[in-house]
Structure formats: structure tokens, C-alpha cells
């Protein structure tokens, strides 16, 4: 991956909203790599004629765009694509029905308990989360099923939250849990799954700068189908690691069980790093289809984030620790 993608581009971001503006600004910045971008963008965007797809409110970001999606041949997926093609089995297994079934999902009030092996356990509200500086992070998302998207997330590094609760030296892993409310989430009644959804990261993975808690995308508050009000995004791992609608974050001293590794341990390991060389025992992971494209792309090692995360796994046999 190109080094200069690391660069944070400072912009005044008061006008992040509709997709075309969001993207035109992004492409503009990419094209010119600009210093005084804010003023130019205001001029370039023109009046806000574009009606936003939903009425969710906007989130003020710090104005830092971290584009980790790399090449110029990778386009950010549309809001429509990102919000209408979702795996969220607590609602339904039908990807295109999640949006409808989750539209009345109550995301406020919402509390996330952060506890376990920490010095200062704390219950966070959504406002607490929004008090962290919100950054734009444009990441690839690779689903284990073999499709991928590029998503402009808003959020903040998980490390910032963890620093606030001060993990004890004995903590080695972080365990996450999704809400499992059968009254709101019809899929939870499906007895073939060991609800609630659980996921986990090693502490150093959780502290990596790429790992974020997301509160929004396209400059807007997250919609339920994308894991509102708060979800994890770990871009170098298969999508199912990026747990949605989190209610619990626990610091532990063991490798936590995850929902998928409980269902099929031989197929879904704890690490689940995107890796074209380690096939899922049942299907190949060599290629993927980018949503919106017709052909297939080669899947990249660590989903293209090898430079940032490969060192986390030095000395590990990734075909054993899949």
C-alpha cells in the first residue's frame, strides 16, 4: 500500500453531507492533494440540491480524512449500496431485507458497558462516544462470502476508548457483544444460532490505529442495518469480525469465543484475517467481487492493510491461526 495514503488531509468539514459532495470533495482532494482545500470545496460543491437518502442527522468530524482505500481504481460504494446489502442475522438472513426490518430499531437511549480487567470500568452513552473526535476513515470491507465494498466510515480509534478505561496488565483480549433483543430483532428467535453475537480481538489488534468504533458513514449517523448506534470496524479482517450494535465490551485474559467459531470452529477461526492464501475450508478466498463492479478482483493480503498490521502476526502460522 502506498505510504502517502496515511496522510491526514486537513479540511473544514462542516459541509459533509450528500454523497456526491462527499465524494467530489474526496476525489478533488485526491487529485490535487490540497492545503487550502476547505475554501475551494465550498466553492466547488455549489448549492445543496441533492436530497440526502435518509433524514439522519450529521456528525461533525474533525475534518481529518484518512483514506485507507488506496488506489485510484477503487471507488467508494454508494450510500444506497452500503445501506441495502447487509448481513445482520439478528434481523434476517436476507441481505436486502435488513434495512426494512431494522428501520424502527431503537438506538437511543443506548448504553455500552465497558468492564472486565480494567481500572476504570464505565458505562458509555452515545453522547460519550460522540465526544471522541470523529474521523473519516475510508476502508475496504471484505465479506467472507466473497464480496467487498469501500465504505467511508466515521468514528474514532478503539484505542482511545480503551485508554479511557485503562486495561489492567493482565488483560490480553477484548470481547464484544451485540444486543440480542427478540422483540426488536426477529432473527434472534432463530434457534440455530448461539445468540448473542460475540466477537473478540487480541488487545494489540484492538489498540491498532486502524481499528475503529464507528458511529456513522457518509457523514451521517449510522443506520440500524449498518450496526447503529455503534459498531466495530476492523478493516483487515473478514466483515463478520466487525461486530454491530455493541452493548458490551469486556477486557479479558483469554481468547474469547466468537459466534461463528462456536458454530463452525474449523471454518471460522478467531483471527479471520483476510488472506487470499488461506482458503476457507469450503470456499476459496482468492478473489472477491466489489459491489458495483461486474468482474472479480484479486483479494489482497490483510485486505490491503499488510503494511499496517502484518507485524501483529510475525512468527504466526496464519494457516493454523486462521
Amino acid at each position, binding site marked *: 500500500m502506498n505510504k502517502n495514503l496515511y496522510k491526514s488531509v486537513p479540511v473544514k468539514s462542516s459541509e459533509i453531507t450528500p454523497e456526491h459532495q462527499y465524494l467530489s470533495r474526496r476525489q478533488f482532494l485526491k487529485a490535487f492533494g490540497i492545503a487550502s482545500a476547505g475554501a475551494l470545496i465550498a466553492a466547488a460543491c455549489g448549492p445543496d440540491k441533492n436530497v440526502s437518502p435518509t433524514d439522519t442527522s450529521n456528525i461533525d468530524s474533525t475534518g481529518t480524512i484518512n483514506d485507507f482505500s488506496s488506489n485510484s481504481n477503487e471507488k467508494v460504494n454508494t450510500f444506497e449500496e452500503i445501506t441495502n446489502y447487509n448481513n445482520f442475522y439478528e434481523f434476517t438472513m436476507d*441481505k436486502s431485507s435488513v434495512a426494512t426490518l431494522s428501520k424502527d430499531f431503537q438506538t437511543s437511549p443506548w448504553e455500552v458497558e465497558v468492564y472486565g480487567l480494567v481500572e476504570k470500568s464505565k458505562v458509555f452513552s452515545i453522547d460519550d462516544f460522540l465526544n471522541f473526535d470523529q474521523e473519516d476513515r475510508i476502508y475496504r470491507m471484505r465479506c467472507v*462470502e466473497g464480496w467487498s465494498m469501500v465504505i467511508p466510515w466515521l468514528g474514532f480509534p478503539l484505542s482511545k476508548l480503551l485508554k479511557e478505561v485503562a486495561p489492567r496488565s493482565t488483560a490480553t483480549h477484548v470481547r464484544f457483544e451485540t444486543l440480542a433483543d427478540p422483540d426488536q430483532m426477529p432473527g434472534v428467535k*432463530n434457534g*440455530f444460532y448461539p445468540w448473542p453475537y460475540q466477537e473478540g480481538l487480541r488487545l494489540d489488534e484492538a489498540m491498532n490505529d486502524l481499528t475503529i468504533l464507528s458511529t456513522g458513514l457518509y457523514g451521517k449517523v449510522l443506520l440500524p442495518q449498518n450496526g447503529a448506534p455503534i459498531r466495530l470496524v476492523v478493516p483487515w479482517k473478514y466483515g463478520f469480525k466487525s461486530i454491530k450494535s455493541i452493548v458490551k465490551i469486556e477486557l479479558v485474559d483469554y481468547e474469547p469465543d466468537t459466534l461463528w467459531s462456536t458454530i*463452525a470452529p474449523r471454518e471460522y477461526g478467531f483471527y479471520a484475517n483476510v488472506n487470499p492464501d488461506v482458503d476457507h475450508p469450503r*470456499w476459496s478466498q*482468492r478473489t472477491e467481487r466489489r459491489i458495483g463492479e461486474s*468482474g*472479480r478482483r484479486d483479494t489482497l493480503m490483510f485486505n490491503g492493510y499488510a503494511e499496517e498490521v502484518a507485524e501483529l502476526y510475525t512468527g504466526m502460522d496464519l494457516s493454523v491461526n486462521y
Partner: protein
Amino acid sequence: MYMKQLLSTWSAKTRQINYLKVLVYIGAITPLIWLMWAYLSNNLTVNPIQAATQRTGNYALIFLTLALSVTPVNIITGYKQIITVRRTLGLFAFFYAAFHFAIFVGLDYGFEWSYVIPELFEKRYTIVGFLAGFILLLLAITSFRWWMKRLGKNWKKLHKLVYLAGILVIVHFAWAKKGDIFRLSGDIGKPLLFGSIILILLILRIPAVRKWIIATRRRLFQYRNNSNKSAPTSPNT
């Protein structure tokens, strides 16, 4: 007189065959039209290739299940005409399976054989799926009268492979889903449902089971007939 009677039964028979077959044709072509319409009107999710692959796979499974249920329906009810749609149902199962395969190779992988070949023969779910498809192809080709005559007794033996195809298709389906059917966990609802149906359909074919069902049906039927019998039947011509 005899000729006339024969002709009238024959035409009655063809009428009935047509009626049933027309129904099957309508039922079989509707999903194709539906799929095309969804594709053209952009209603096939944002990942239309995956959706089309899954839908055609589902249709193939449904028609194979229907084809496999013809004989059991005949065994249980004694309704003979239904046998006349067995071949059509089987051919539509093959049609959708072929479509499913064509989407996989052509649309999904763009005939990129360096990807398709390993994808087909390295992964267990594609291996069993391919095998099932190959069996259906073989049976579709030999479903014509010419082959039936040519193969004679072997034709029946060959076409018993459809039972194997039924089992392979279920395994293919279950392995393509995220879950573990043997641990009863994950996305296994549909494979489990279709697996149970196909299992029952195969059990009903076991000679002992089949004989027992037919005997029981005849007994019930005769019992009813005997109790109804009051007037002597007219003599045959």
C-alpha cells in the same frame, strides 16, 4: 367400435397430459421471467450476480425435488397421469442447474478458467455441485426416446442416478451455507428442510415400503369398492 373407444380414451388422455404439462411449463417458466424482470428492473440487490446464482440454484433444487416426488405421489395416490410430467420436471431441474453453472462460470468469473478450474475442483461444495450437475446433464441428454430404446434396460439403471444427484445437491446446498448441518447450528434451515423432504422421497421408493403402501392403498380402495358394489358391472366389449 373398439377403434373408436381407443381413440376417445387416447384423446382424453392427451388432453389431460397437456393440461398437467401446461401447468408444469407455466410453473417452470414463471421463475425465469421473474428473475429476468428483477434483473432488468435493478431489483436483484446490489450484488445481482450472487443473487442470480442463489436463485437459479434454489429453482434447480425445487424442480429436482418436484421431479423426485412424482413417483412417490403415484405410489401413494395411484394417480398415474402424474408420471407424464416427471421428465419435464427433471429437464427443468437441469435447465436451472445449467443456468446456475453458466452464471457461475460466465458472469461471476467471466470465463477466467485459471480461477474457475481451481474453484470448481478444489472445494468440496463445488465438487459435489459439479457432480450433481454432471449427472443431471447425462440424464437430460439421455431423456429422449431414442436413447431410451438404445440403452434398453440400462436406461433405467442410468436414470436411478437421479437419487444420487438429489443427495449431492443437498450436500452442495448445505456446504455452501454458513453453518454446520451436523451440529445443527448456523444457516441450515433450508438445507435441513429440503434434505428431509428428499430423504422421505427416497425412503418411499424402497421396494418394501413401496409394496406396503401400494398394498395398503389397494386394500382400502377394494374395501370401499366392495362396500359400494351393488349392481353388476357391465360386461367388457
